[in-house]
């Protein structure tokens, strides 16, 4: 009988090859979907105040010494993997009849202590978008492939973006791709908000926005949970910062947020940068620039630039890069010279 099972095992159909790109693409899509809340979670939510009160009383009664806050070491994983989706809006066309373009793409970033591999402009696309109802200035202009920025000196190319792969050997930990900030060791960064602020000041100077930006980048990096928490507390203390409390995001997700005033861009003034995090894990969910006042036919509280954190994780698998894209080849940006 055992032989029969062995024979049957040999008659197994061939195993399909795993399409790693599709696998990762599906994962990125799945984790943006809303999750069901379990009955237990709902129960806990409902009775949370009661449970908290009971917990406090119990603590007072037994006078437990304050436990040392749990510290999670950064771990020995080979790569810090960050998959993010960015979209931003740019005002283009004729200044008398402007419209917008959405520049939408993903960035897949793999970082170790001495190497960084980044896939840029993944699934990238630039689409025109009318700022007014009932008119389509891009159509009316004959659907141009390249459109001029308003207030800028460049053109924006409409249509799909070409992905690019960049591989660099770096010493220490670099923050975002465009950031010059680099740390020899993330582990050595303080977990106390004022001390952390001081440490960041030594890198970017005493500029609240630059400190805030760096703190946000830090929160999306391979830092410990207590360091991430300190960075969020630091953000709340910056000049002009506002704690937003609970923030509802798309697809039924929500988190808690903080906003800091942002400098004007070449097209928008009255902008603030918001960071929304998952209060349970402390991990960032979204970083976005929002208008604080109506402009260009856009109402206040319109997002003009959004970075969504789809995956932030330690992994031991090798970076997955598109095979048909040359490493360190030219990056064909959708923003081009006139």
């Amino acid at each position, binding site marked *: 009988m055992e032989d029969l*099972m062995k024979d*049957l095992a040999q008659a197994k159909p061939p*195993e399909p090859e795993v399409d790693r790109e599709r696998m990762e693409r599906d994962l990125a899509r*799945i984790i943006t979907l809303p999750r069901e809340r*379990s009955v*237990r979670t709902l129960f806990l939510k409902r009775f949370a105040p009661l449970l908290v009160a009971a917990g406090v009383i119990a603590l007072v009664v037994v006078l437990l010494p304050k436990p040392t806050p749990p510290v999670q070491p950064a771990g020995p994983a080979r790569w810090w993997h960050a998959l993010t989706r960015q979209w931003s809006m740019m005002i283009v066309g004729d200044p008398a009849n402007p419209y917008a373009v959405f520049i939408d793409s993903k960035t897949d970033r793999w970082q170790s202590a001495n190497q960084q591999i980044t896939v840029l402009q993944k699934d990238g696309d630039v689409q025109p978008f009318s700022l007014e109802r009932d008119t389509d200035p891009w159509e009316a202009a004959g659907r141009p492939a390249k459109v001029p920025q308003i207030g800028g000196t460049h053109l924006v190319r409409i249509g799909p973006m070409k992905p690019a792969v960049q591989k660099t050997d770096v010493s220490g930990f670099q923050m975002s791709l465009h950031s010059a900030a680099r740390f020899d060791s993330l582990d050595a960064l303080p977990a106390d908000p004022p001390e952390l602020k001081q440490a960041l000041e030594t890198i970017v100077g005493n500029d609240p926005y630059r400190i805030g930006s760096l703190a946000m980048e830090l929160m999306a990096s391979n830092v410990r949970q207590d360091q991430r928490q300190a960075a969020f507390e630091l953000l709340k203390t910056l000049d002009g910062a506002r704690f937003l409390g609970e923030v509802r995001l798309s697809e039924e997700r929500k988190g808690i947020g903080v906003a800091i005033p942002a400098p004007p861009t070449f097209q928008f003034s009255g902008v603030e940068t918001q960071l929304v995090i998952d209060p349970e894990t402390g991990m960032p969910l979204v970083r976005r620039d929002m208008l604080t006042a109506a402009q260009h036919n856009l109402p206040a509280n319109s997002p003009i630039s959004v970075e969504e954190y789809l*995956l*932030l994780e330690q992994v031991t698998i090798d970076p997955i890069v598109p095979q048909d894209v040359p490493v360190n080849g030219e990056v064909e940006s959708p923003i081009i010279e006139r």
Partner: protein
Amino acid sequence: MEDFSGVYRECYPRVLAYAASHAGAQRAEDITSETFTIAWRKLDQMPSNALPWLLGIARNLVKASRRQVWHDEIEDIPITDDFVRFVELRAALASLSEADQEVLTLIAWHGLPAAEAAQVLGCTTATYFVRLHRARRRLKAALSTPNSDRARESWKTS
């Protein structure tokens, strides 16, 4: 989220293999994607050993779109004695009920221990062993039926 992506990467190939063997390679990726979408939605219910639970989800999805594609897949294999045995086994297996096929293939093709296979099917391990014993007996019987002999002959002469 990290836990989920870890489980996803670890279990994806096995869920894909399960889906491919029961619904065909073309549908396997979609079923696998749907399996993990459901798993994500029900993440609170995901056990620490997630594979049997995931295969249980995949099984329900496969049932909705069951289509055996064995004949498509065996055409490229050279006709040798091993191949004849292979065809014979497939033919015998295909003649069994879906329930018997599942009981046998969870172990023989997907390498699950009996306790995990029982979890996939939603029965106790003891019940699984009883069903496995009966399914093996029926497979053996199917291998010696005239139909199986005819299958063997037809492949030998084709």
